[in-house]
């Protein structure tokens, strides 16, 4: 039986409902104006909340460069698979409105090449503009500092989006307490943005096992160093439960163009592989569960022991899915990978 909790109801120009994640901004009218602002009704798009779509072409990544046009095609494929109809733009029109201010969370901590790739982020931004009608000025690519963003290739002069380091706009004046985590959130997510797209990088993490969609938001808070105790659990889940993130995050675009399968999160050339993959999901827990599964398979393929069962296994993924957190689905058997 299909429950409301299991399905992401996406209606053109309306909002999404994802288990414990209740986006608060978009209205839910089935006859909401189309995102192009023309008022034409669009057929509802119905997507299982636990769907994770993957598009992959390792050939688009070489040691010298990443083919930006190919990355855009790959993103289109992943969005189309996520939609189930092949029409990826319909997903964007359903999830976002032209009036949205969309924050794109890049992950730039480790510098290139294991940061979110500017080619992928630009592709996301261009599609938001072209398909939804969101002005580039209202697309904010952010991370902790402008310096880290610049080092990862996000120059301040980008045409498709604005680049904002939280060090330029600051954090909330008061902490938000969420479970065991208490943090001040970046003003980009708490004040400026109405919606968030998370663009994590698929990497091994020496403490947390995996750094992906959920953990990427350690870059949205002022005190990530306080959240690494006990292998980041339950802190990763708690940080993501804060309303600033839970209510605004609508899409995950997983950057698996290059994957660091051991020795992360810093760049390790010997264990970083060109995978040329992009994953799209609305459920950050499902996205991380699938990402971790791929990470384990890569490790196995290269003769490395599994992370699961060790003390650094990313237990926070299951915790994020528990009844207290309700952030998504962690059980691979319940996740539709397409």
């Amino acid at each position, binding site marked *: 039986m299909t429950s409301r909790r299991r399905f992401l109801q996406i209606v053109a120009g309306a909002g999404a409902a994802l288990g414990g994640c209740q986006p608060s901004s978009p209205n839910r009218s089935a006859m909401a104006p189309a995102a192009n602002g023309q008022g034409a009704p669009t057929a509802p798009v119905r997507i299982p909340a636990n769907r994770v779509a993957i598009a992959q072409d390792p050939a688009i990544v070489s040691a010298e460069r990443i083919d930006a046009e190919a990355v855009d095609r790959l993103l289109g494929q992943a969005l189309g698979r996520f939609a189930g109809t092949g029409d990826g733009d319909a997903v964007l029109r359903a999830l976002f409105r032209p009036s949205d201010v969309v924050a794109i969370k890049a992950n730039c901590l480790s510098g290139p090449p294991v940061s979110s790739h500017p080619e992928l982020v630009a592709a996301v931004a261009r599609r938001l503009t072209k398909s939804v009608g969101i002005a580039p000025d209202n697309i904010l690519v952010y991370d902790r500092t402008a310096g880290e963003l610049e080092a990862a290739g996000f120059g301040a002069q980008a045409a498709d989006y604005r680049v904002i380091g939280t*060090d330029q706009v600051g954090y909330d004046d008061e*902490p938000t307490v969420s479970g065991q985590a208490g943090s001040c959130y970046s003003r980009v997510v708490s004040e400026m943005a109405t919606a968030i797209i998370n663009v994590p990088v698929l990497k091994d993490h*020496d*403490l947390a096992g995996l750094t992906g969609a959920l953990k990427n938001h350690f870059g949205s808070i002022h005190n990530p*160093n306080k959240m690494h105790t006990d292998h980041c659990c339950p802190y990763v889940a708690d940080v993501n439960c804060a309303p600033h993130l839970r209510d605004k995050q609508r899409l995950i675009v997983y950057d698996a163009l290059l994957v660091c399968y051991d020795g992360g999160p810093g760049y390790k050339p010997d264990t970083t592989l060109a995978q040329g993959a992009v994953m799209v999901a609305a459920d950050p827990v499902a996205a991380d569960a699938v990402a971790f599964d791929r990470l384990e398979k890569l490790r196995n393929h290269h003769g490395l022991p599994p992370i699961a069962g060790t003390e650094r296994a990313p237990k926070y993924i299951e915790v994020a899915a528990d009844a207290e957190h309700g952030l998504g689905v962690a059980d691979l058997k319940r996740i539709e990978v397409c």
Partner: protein
Amino acid sequence: MDRREALRLMGCGLAAGAALGALPSCANAAGYMSEARYYDKLAGLKVRCQLCPKQCVVGDRERGFCGVRENRGGKYYTLVYGQCAALNLDPIEKKPLFHFLPGSGAFSIAAAGCNFDCKDCQNWEISQARPEQITSATRMLPNDVAAGAKRYGAESIAYTYSEPVVFYEYMLDSAQAGHRVGVRSVMISNGYIRPDPMKALLPHLDAVKIDLKSISEKFYKDYCVGELAPVLETIKLVKRSGKWLELVYLVVPTLNDSDATVREMCRWVRANVGAEVPLHFSRFYPNYQLKKLPPTPYETMERCWKLAREAGMSFVYVGNVPDTPHVNTICPGCGKAVIKRSGYAILERNLRNGTCRFCARRIPGVWE
């Protein structure tokens, strides 16, 4: 500046160098860092910090729990050396140190960071911040700190507000610089430090105040993300060193204020560092992540004071409470006030060469 003017300035925030513009070498501190002194290099460009009991294992480009020490390519750095995030000329009583140069000024400095995550931190804007988040921080190297203290007539430099353990190198070098110009140093700390760095630091300190936040490991784990046992070891270590020691116990309603808990804490203190260590009960105010609790009732503060006295503690004080008589230093011999205070101000001093003027009983402390 004479002593009177310095005292007039006490308690006035000298916002991170703004009021000390004439001091030497005060420049923007952005990006300043220095190699950390206590860490091991591990395989895979990792390091293990050996400064505090957390002993964080830190990967390349990551930071320890404190947020102010970073691994860069297998080398561990402090990011706060010489990076002064707060600067005040405080009365020493504000630390609080009641038996150490009473009435003197303490040139009080802090850098970002802490190795605890206390849910009720009163200075969380500094202590729970990463260095780059404090844009008002000013570069002030150890010699500048010593010179500033001297210039403002302070008798000591206080490492305070945040947690000086995490700016250890800066504190150590400043303490040495202070001693070179005749200024003493006091460490205002949570006591969460490993024995070796503390032993290396103690010769350069003159007094240490330690927050004993509870006598319960569970409290330390749940509300501080720390541990009690290493703190107790540091308290004993300071006492054994002969350096002046005072303790503060922040009384948090419902969490550490039961009769049994307070009695147990007092028993430990008396048994391990003696009845004459000054013990300050400080009143909690809701702050940071612990706003659901009310301020500690005055009655609770009074009860704690009585429990400590009943437990045999000789010098028990109450802080953050207006108009309390429990800020006076009472001679255990004759029961008269050897130092009368109003808040942080000294009203009357009845000490003579470290003894009670009325009965000649020795009053422990550093008085000159």
